[in-house]
């Protein structure tokens, strides 16, 4: 299973970004291989529609769950239509590594 965390940097010790569509990086963690990949969010600086664009990127990457602090209405609709589960992680100023741990514990609430 692949999970995605919007991040301020490319490393799992970097902080979780509080935004989804405008986060500079997406970190994708594979729960089976325990590998992480960092992807630059190439549409973070676009004028509009960044939520749907980010959702499309996650769909193309085969992500199963998004762990995020916040997600907009259009992005949420696109993620749900694509079968991606959206889990809210509201711990402020936390690292990506902590977000992954919280996900693995299984106590995140679905949006």
């Amino acid at each position: 299973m692949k999970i995605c965390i919007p991040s301020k940097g490319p490393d799992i010790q970097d902080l979780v970004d509080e935004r989804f569509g405008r986060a500079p990086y997406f970190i994708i963690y594979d729960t089976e291989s325990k590998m992480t990949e960092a992807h630059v969010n190439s549409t973070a600086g676009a004028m509009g529609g960044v939520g749907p664009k980010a959702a499309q990127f996650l769909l193309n990457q085969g992500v199963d769950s998004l762990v995020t602090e916040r997600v907009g209405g259009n992005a949420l609709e696109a993620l749900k239509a694509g079968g991606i589960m959206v889990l809210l992680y509201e711990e402020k100023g936390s690292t990506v590594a902590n977000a992954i741990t919280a996900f693995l514990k299984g106590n995140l609430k679905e949006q």
Partner: protein
Amino acid sequence: MTTRMKIAIASGKGGTGKSMVAANLAWALAQSDRVTLVDCDVEEPNLHLFFPPDDPESTDVQVSIPAFDNSRCTLCGDCAGFCAFGALVVAKDRVLFFPEHCHSCGGCALVCPAGAITEIQRPIGTVTIRHLSAHLSLVTGTLNEGEVLGVKVIREAKRYAAKPGWLVCDASPGTSCPVVETLHGSDFCLLITESTPFGLHDLELAYSVTSHLGIPVGVVINRSDGKDEEVRRFCNERGIIVLATIPFDRWIAAVQGSGDLISRVDPAWKERFIALGGACRSSVGGT
């Protein structure tokens, strides 16, 4: 010979009296000339409130949006990949369309390799035409609630108004795309300000836009309390002429508040607004 003169009324700051000047100017000039007044404040048009009710004609303003033939769509994702505005998302089993992000470029239909996309029309607003007198028409652009493409409605309203005579276009406040669209193609712009630090601040912003567009301007100081030194200094430094000053006056406020026009009620104000129109025309070398 009929005058052909396009005047835009702008301000930067809201509430300075753009609509008041636009309506009075149009009314006064229409006593002897053909005038079309265009309400380009499409998110909250209100110029029609100055004129008695009549029987307006309305036309929809439409934009093209994609329609999908699911039997042809292969979910290849080319359309979403092309869309610069995030209006399309291709999921595992369907295409999602977010119409409010669509800029109607038609690119998705062009790139679709399966021929699954056609374009259909979607209304986003209206243009309403009122024939107020033999000489005066009012064209009102109205953007539907929740829509974002105000520029398209302004463009259509101005297109309906393209006639001989005076064209007076009342802009929305601010300095963004709708204002630029209103100013586009104008011969002259009247910048309305007031003698407050806020009026001056936003006058400077509005002037930076008209300068960038290369449109000559004149200033009207509205609700003047007589302490207009800062505005006049700004205008002097840039060689901008102050074409009119309207005092902060209880009678004017009362006429305005009742939905009437000072140029309609008082012949002296009618003459002043006719002179203001003449001054605009002279400023650009017209006769």
